[in-house]
């Protein structure tokens, strides 16, 4: 059966249409007159048809309507989680901002008399340290002007 052996490679890779009984050409002629090769081809075609039928028949266990309900629920849960993931950092940032704005003046209190501290704060220099310093016996008056860049400071004996 040398001829059959030569056909084997072709049978293993051939298009199913070419394997069918009425296929034309050299291979078709061989299949028409060789019962052994025909039996092998029938077996292959039968097995492939069975596989197709099997895969077509394996339906999902979950009904589509139930699957839709689950998917909607899961989607909503994800959206809720996403909202929390956005809201929590936002809330933390807001709280941080509020705490930052209400924190005590960073101007060091010790070493400066209260008048100096007030003057520095009035000039918007909190944190930068005082530019001017009142003597301990002096009183200080801070007078804002119409020009926001100019503030008058009186040191009074």
């Amino acid at each position, binding site marked *: 059966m040398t001829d059959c052996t030569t056909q084997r490679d072709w049978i293993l890779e051939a298009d199913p249409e070419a394997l069918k009984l009425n296929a034309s050409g050299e291979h078709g002629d061989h299949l028409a007159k060789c019962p052994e090769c025909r*039996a092998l081809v029938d077996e292959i075609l039968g097995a492939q048809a*069975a596989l197709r039928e099997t895969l077509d028949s394996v339906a999902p266990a979950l009904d589509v309507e139930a699957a839709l309900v689950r*998917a909607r629920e899961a989607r909503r849960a994800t959206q809720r989680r996403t909202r929390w993931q956005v809201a929590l950092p936002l809330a933390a940032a807001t709280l941080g901002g509020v705490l930052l704005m209400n924190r005590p003046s960073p101007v060091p209190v010790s070493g400066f008399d209260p008048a100096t501290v007030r003057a520095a704060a009035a000039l918007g220099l909190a944190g930068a340290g005082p530019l001017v310093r009142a003597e301990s016996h002096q009183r200080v008056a801070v007078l804002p002007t119409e020009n926001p860049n100019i503030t008058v400071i009186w040191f009074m004996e």
Partner: protein
Amino acid sequence: MSGSETSSSDDLLIRRAQKGEPGALEDLIRRHYGLIHRWALVKTGDADDAEDVTQRVLIQLFKKLGSFRGRSSFKSWLHRITSNAAGEFHRRQGAREKAVSKWDEKQGRESAEPEVLRRIGGSEAVEVARAFFSELPERLREVFDLVELQGYTATEAAEMLVMSPSTVRVHLLRARRTLRTRIMEQHPALAEDFS
């Protein structure tokens, strides 16, 4: 319904769903639910895992349909979403070996799925399905299923699988050879004639 009719009514449903029309997305999902599950089954090799992947795909559709621009066909896009969902599932589950062994394990016990296989296709179908899932790597299974069993052209399958049509053809020949060799081995009398 022909392929082009399916495609044009898909387009209509997609447009309606993207505009937020109630029920349109659900109709689209109802239409493709079985197909998604089939693809997931072929990718995972396990009916339970396929259910899980299908569910993930549905969630992704709720989330991502708005971003579908029609640059590829809807089926290709859907297939890619299914592939990604299965990939993510594999990564989480620790993968393909488990799927194959689960399939084998299921053949030996009286679970519902093998019963379905036996009832419909008989023992031959179970054997060929077992060979399909255990002998063929995932990529070859997908190609074989899309082209040989579902009737897509090599070009259509190539678009779905993001590979060239010539690679699809090579995979198809390799899958046929592997599967048919296994079928032959199951029938020694037929194989003897060639030895």
